[in-house]
């Protein structure tokens, strides 16, 4: 076996090789500066010694002035005026907020398909809607979401959900004159984005230094939905945009998202019993959430392979177990996806990097899970269900590698995953596939995980695919 010192020397010798693998990219600096040019900066002077002194003097003067004003106010009876409501604004001038409006997603594709509801109508992340099968997309977001801005930059904490062709919701976190993460607002449309209604503000009441993590919103019907708001401190990660999530609040609505009530809260103390892998300073906390009904849901625990389940709308949680025999555990189980309150799918994979993942299904709302037949022999890349019986799966073909430049296998099941039939052995999807959806037995859509520079469509159940280039109108 190679000696440590020799291995270290060889690693250092790999630098040249790696440099050739990742050469400088033409125009990359220009592209970075172009991105910088459209990025707003925090207001206020940069820090320096002189500024610190000036700032201290200004703060002292402000405190003195405030004290005088309060004293005078009390004497003049001004304090008896009714409370002035907090003005909610996205202008962060009053406090040094670190959040900014951002673009959505990664990669160079302009469209991240979210839900196609028919062969022609569908939604993509960011309030984009198509009525011609994905060729053209229009941003139908409400003007209040970005306060009328035409820019495709979205507020902090942005999340969206698309139930059908008409009903969609968007959520975002807004600051106020007193806090950067003051409240959350949701926006709902029931006419395909022609009109939007804004919810009342959902106060976040975050401690100082805390902010929201990845917000999620979802609906089981046009009226019943949930809102998941993880929170934490950014100081722990050293990155103002990525807080170390330590807790989360769960909200519910029964009026289509106009009003929200808090159902439960998972605090940091709840996660003290979970352990991150040895050597990691990752702190276990609430991750993503999924619901099968208004009361039954699952939450992943960050930094661990644990999934929690609630059957009482978040009032109590317990660890969900899955059948993972045959896998080299510790095993990773993805959050389940539910087609209805009973039928759900998830995938479990071992830690040995082998294509031996298990397809797990439930028909009783997640009480019991059973291993389903595996489509093909390769890595299971994407799975989609038209209904409880009709499923499609995209799988790597035998001998496939990332450099083999071949297509993927598409399998179909008509018996709820009991058996699979190869439909197409060479689906021309680009690596890595990120989205597969069939709206019926014939019409399907596929795109890359980095966004759809090219969207693949089929109208014959996946036997042949056509590539279209989506454009935002």
């Amino acid at each position: 076996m190679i000696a440590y010192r020799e291995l270290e020397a060889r690693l250092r010798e790999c630098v040249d090789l790696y440099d050739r693998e990742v050469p400088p990219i033409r125009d990359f600096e220009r592209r970075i500066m172009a991105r910088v040019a459209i990025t707003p900066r925090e207001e206020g002077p940069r820090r320096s010694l002189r500024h610190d002194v000036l700032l201290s003097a200004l703060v002292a003067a402000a405190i003195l002035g405030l004290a005088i004003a309060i004293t005078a106010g009390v004497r003049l009876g001004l304090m008896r005026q009714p409370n002035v409501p907090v003005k909610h604004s996205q202008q962060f001038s009053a406090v040094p907020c670190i959040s900014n409006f951002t673009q959505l997603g990664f990669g160079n594709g302009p469209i991240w398909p979210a839900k196609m509801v028919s062969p022609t109508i569908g939604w993509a992340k960011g309030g984009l809607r198509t009525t011609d099968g994905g060729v053209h997309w229009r941003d139908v977001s409400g003007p209040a979401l970005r306060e009328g801005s035409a820019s495709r930059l979205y507020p902090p904490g942005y999340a969206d959900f698309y139930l059908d062709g008409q009903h969609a919701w968007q959520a975002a976190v807004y600051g106020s004159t007193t806090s950067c993460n003051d409240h959350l607002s949701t926006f709902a449309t029931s006419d395909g984005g022609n009109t939007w209604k804004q919810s009342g503000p959902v106060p976040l009441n975050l401690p100082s230094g805390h902010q929201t993590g990845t917000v999620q919103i979802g609906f089981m019907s046009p009226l019943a939905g949930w809102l998941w708001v993880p929170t934490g401190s950014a100081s722990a990660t050293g990155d103002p945009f990525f807080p170390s999530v330590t807790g989360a609040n769960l909200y519910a609505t029964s009026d289509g998202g106009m009003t929200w009530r808090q159902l439960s809260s998972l605090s940091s103390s709840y996660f003290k019993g979970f352990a991150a892998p040895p050597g990691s300073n990752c702190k276990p906390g609430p991750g993503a959430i999924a619901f099968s009904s208004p009361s039954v849901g699952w939450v992943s625990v960050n930094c661990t392979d644990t999934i929690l389940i609630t059957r009482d709308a978040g009032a109590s949680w317990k660890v969900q177990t899955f059948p993972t025999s045959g896998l080299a555990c510790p095993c990773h189980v993805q959050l389940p996806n539910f087609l209805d309150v009973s039928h759900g799918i998830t995938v479990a994979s071992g830690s040995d990097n082998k294509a031996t993942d298990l397809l797990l299904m439930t028909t009783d709302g997640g009480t019991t899970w059973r291993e389903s037949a595996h489509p093909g022999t390769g890595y299971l890349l994407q799975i989609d269900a038209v209904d409880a019986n009709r499923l499609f799966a995209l799988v790597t073909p035998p001998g496939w590698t990332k450099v083999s430049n071949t297509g993927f296998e598409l399998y179909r099941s008509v018996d709820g995953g009991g058996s699979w039939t190869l439909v197409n052995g060479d689906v021309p999807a680009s690596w890595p596939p990120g989205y597969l959806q069939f709206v019926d037995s014939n019409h399907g859509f596929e795109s890359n995980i980095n966004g759809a520079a090219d969207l693949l469509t089929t109208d014959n159940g996946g036997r042949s695919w056509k590539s279209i280039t989506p454009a935002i109108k």
Partner: protein
Amino acid sequence: MPTRLPAWPESGVWVKDDDRAWFEPLVRNLSHPALKYAQMLVLNTDVAQEIVQEAFARVWASAKTPSREDEFRRWLYRIIANLANDYHRRQAISGRASLPHASLVDPVEEVEQRDQRKLLLAAMKRLTPKARQAVYLRYFEDRSFAETAGVMGLPQVTVRVIVHRALATLRQRLASRRVDEVAV
């Protein structure tokens, strides 16, 4: 004509204004190292480019961003690492059955890479993202353990453990490869 950096103040921190002149030299000096770093974390060229662009935009946006190049670089690298983590999380959330890139065994690629350095680089790419990050900083950027720990935001002793375990994994993988080759 090269852009001159602003004069170094006694406080060791530049007073940045909204002029992008202070930022451009940092982009020029660090865009390619940052890209290589991001590529090592996500093993995807398009995503790495996007992450680096986003990271520069974020350091530009934040008033707390240090201007001194070494501190700026550490800040930038932390954001890149966080964006890479977020990218992997998004895959887990958005993908119905997504697959982490790093977990893929790539037999054909491995067979083609008989060169020892290529073999080693391929083995390194199969390490966990955290181990790749530590090994990259330690050996590809030739940073001390203290500097690596600073960039990763971890205690030095933890970084030493991560690197040691990564080296042990690499030794095992290289050894098993040799056994395979002898057997063939």
